[in-house]
């Protein structure tokens, strides 16, 4: 089965986008965009390119990701399969957030349903039923009786006390990523160091970004910031995160990072730059794992991370085009440079 998955990943790897593909997409006339997207293995985006609806673009990108995941999990069983399936659950957690926000603003069920991402066979929620909940309280109770009970249970208690939409979102995100870490743990033992490093890059990046945002954009107190981060044991351990959360400025946080991180991030002037550098580093590592002879699940996960990075960039580019932005601005927004294998 791993031979199948390895072959499949190798075939899919050829679909990853290079800098010249983005340039070509940027320069191509509208009439050629669909065929360019199709050529680069994005039939879902090609099919709906002429639609001006940005939400639908998001939905098509997710549909593309789900299509590929469906193929990749076909030969997998047990923990590896569970992990990749759970990896797609973040789209459904995002649907949960949309439902919650919709209920807070009293949106009509039909409108609310149109904003949800169709999950196809990965969907575990009854969206019709949830969209027709009368209010947030009823919605949370219904969610608590469903597959995301473990994530939602404590969110409801917190929401009842604070009625704060931010705490809802933050708790849901944290709950989801803690689920990812939990499902990755058994795989880290058998899928080799490459897989653990992929996870480390992912979770450390999320933790550092959330830490910076919560601390310096939302001005939350250090203890609360730490509480909202994902519990993990990668490069940024709990002790290190507590130290970082207690720092008073972005520069101080960056200076207190482990040496190799500090070397890369010292010049970052703001949080988006930190994200960009860290994402690039993670992508370089993922590329290395994907091109190596690591176990199939590691290569598949690396491919998925890289593919989603590509899809984000394609989305940004297409949005830029829809909005009629100049090519130079779109290029700047992409901030994408060729990856170098470490």
């Amino acid at each position: 089965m791993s031979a199948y998955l390895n072959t499949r990943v190798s075939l899919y790897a050829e679909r990853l986008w290079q800098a010249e593909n983005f340039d070509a997409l940027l320069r191509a006339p509208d009439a050629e965009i669909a065929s360019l997207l199709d050529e680069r293995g994005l039939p879902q985006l090609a099919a709906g390119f002429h639609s001006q609806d940005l939400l639908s673009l998001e939905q098509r990108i997710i549909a593309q990701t789900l299509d590929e995941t469906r193929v990749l999990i076909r030969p997998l069983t047990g923990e590896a399969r569970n992990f990749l399936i759970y990896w797609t659950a973040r789209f459904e957690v995002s649907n949960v957030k949309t439902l919650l926000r919709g209920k807070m603003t009293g949106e009509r069920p039909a409108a609310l349903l149109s904003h949800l991402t169709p999950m196809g066979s990965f969907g575990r929620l009854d969206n019709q039923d949830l969209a027709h909940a009368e209010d947030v309280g009823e919605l949370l109770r219904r969610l608590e009786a469903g597959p995301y009970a473990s994530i939602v249970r404590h969110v409801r208690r917190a929401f009842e006390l604070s009625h704060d939409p931010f705490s809802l979102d933050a708790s849901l995100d944290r709950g989801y990523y803690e689920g990812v870490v939990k499902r990755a743990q058994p795989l880290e033992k058998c899928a080799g160091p490459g897989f653990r490093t992929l996870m480390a890059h992912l979770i450390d990046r999320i933790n550092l970004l959330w830490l910076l945002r919560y601390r310096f954009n939302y001005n939350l107190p250090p203890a609360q910031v730490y509480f909202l981060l994902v519990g993990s044991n990668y490069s940024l351990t709990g002790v290190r995160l507590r130290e970082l959360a207690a720092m008073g400025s972005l520069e101080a946080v960056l200076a207190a990072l482990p040496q190799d991180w500090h070397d890369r991030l010292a010049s970052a002037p703001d949080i988006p730059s930190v994200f960009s550098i860290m994402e690039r580093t993670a992508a370089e590592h993922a590329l290395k794992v994907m091109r190596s002879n690591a176990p199939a699940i590691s290569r598949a996960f690396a491919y998925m991370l890289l593919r989603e990075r590509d899809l984000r960039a394609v989305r940004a580019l297409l949005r830029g085009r829809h909005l009629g932005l100049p090519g130079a601005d779109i290029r700047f927004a992409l901030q994408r440079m060729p990856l170098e294998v470490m």
Partner: protein
Amino acid sequence: MLRAEPLLKIQLLILASEAPDAALELARFGVFNPTSGSPDGLGESPAEAYREAWLDAESRLSKLLEQCGNSSTLVVPADAAAPSLADLQELNVWLKEVWSACLACHEGEERIADESKHLDSLEETLSKLERLNVDLAHLLRQDSLLSVNIGSLPANGLKRVSEALSMTGTLVTQFDHVGDQVFAVIAGPRGRQEEVRGLLAQAGWRELPVPEELRTHPQAARSWLEAERIRISQLSGAECDVMGALRENFAPRLNEARLRVALARPLAEAALAGVRGKGGLAALAGWIPRRQLNALRATLETRFHGRYWMEARQPDPHEAADVPSLVRYPGWLKPFVPLVKSYGVPRYGEFDPALPFAFTYLLLFGAMFGDVGHGGIILLLSILFARKLGRFSWVGASAGVVSMLFGMLYGSIFGYEDIIQPVWLSPLHNPVYVLSVAVAFGVAFIVFTLLVNARNKWVAGHRAEAVFDSTGLAGLIFYLGAVGGLASVAGAADVAQPAWMLAIFGIVIVAGFKWYEAKAGLGERILVTAIETLETGINLFSNTLSFMRVAAFSLNHVALALAIFTLAAGLSVAGHWFTIALGNVVIIVLEGGIVAIQALRLMYYEGFSRFFSGDGIEFVPLRLETERSKV
């Protein structure tokens, strides 16, 4: 029975205000399958708001009925009219009010249950506090420097909360663990209490309301707890009263709401397919059986007295894939239909394989599992468990009867071959003959499937494929020629030369068609043609040989019985009969199951896959809720 009923596409134009009644009338009519597509220029969706209102109402109503436990049969009067959009919206407002009241009661009950559970934990906890002999008054005293909280939080969050609180100089000490909650004392500098409070709110912290009495006299906790329990049970009683009153007050109107929601369902469902309109007009499109056209006109005329316009037309060839398929089966064939539909629904105009499936499946099963005794047991079990198996008991009973018939042909009863004389032959003594018959049956079956496929393609307008493709007439010519040629080689016939010429003629046509169909460069075209032509021959050959398993299983049946007899022969009388009985059970359960699957497999892969695309659309008419529940 062998193909779907001819359908007509109906375009019905009516006043938008009468659309709910029109849809209701169509639902009562019972054979209108709504679909998209309406006359040009109708750019609005007049039923969209209606559908939304209905969905809201239906959702609230079903939640209310779930709460109230109302499951009485709904009677829809024959002359009842569908509610208008305004009626539905008004109903929705009322349902929202009722549901909100119910929800408040329901949540109140849940809160009370939660409180009660919490009291249980508290009681347990307080008894531990008593034993600790802690001076709570001292502990909880409002100090200017120290802030102390006692409470509970989710057990899996304790470590994280402790770590986070350590950043504020606050200590967390767990002193009890009940269920998924831990009870803890939190103490830290008063100056950072706000910070701590924010964090605790996020962590699901629940403060323990320790009464004043407890702070000074721990023993007083018992009476305080007792008082709390009484208060909560009173609250619970009050909530129950409110709920009961709600049920009583709302029950009559709730029944009326059920009726209105049921009457509104047809238009709401039709809107899903797409009801278009403009101004005061609404257009409903759908499919009805051709023979029902006059009846539909009469129904509409009676109800709307000419206030409608209806057009009926044959389906266009290009929309064949969108036309639903309505096949009427006689009662005895219906139990076999789910087995066909588990493969797929026949397209409109396609040959429906249910009838040949039923016959061939039973024939194959009987041929592979021919035994009077085993067939009799299957028949008996199917009758005994008829209620549990439902319609499938008929499939089981038929399979049992056919197995018995083949048992008589083979002279086999519970594996014994010497009790009754075979009417035809014993497979074990004539294996080559049985294999030849199985292959001959396979040839006939494949010829049948190729003919059906050619017919299906022809009807669907793919005439070139029907004639020239490998699964069409050219493939059939090749196959018949090759079979004749091979039979001549085996000495079963003497038609070698004309047969091989026929086979070559057929395969050349197939190759020519593949060449024509392959739209690629020269090299790829040669490769595709060569491979696909070769595949034609290999497939037909291997599919034919697949039928040898029919003979193999009939031999296997006898061989398995012989193995059991051999085992039993070496045992005492009791052991002998026990082994025979157990062996027969194994044969019926294990071999019977395998044969049932093999017969199904032969039907699906050697039969259906050749002529049955299975991607048709089932005919789903608009129906009233009560009628649907009866089906």
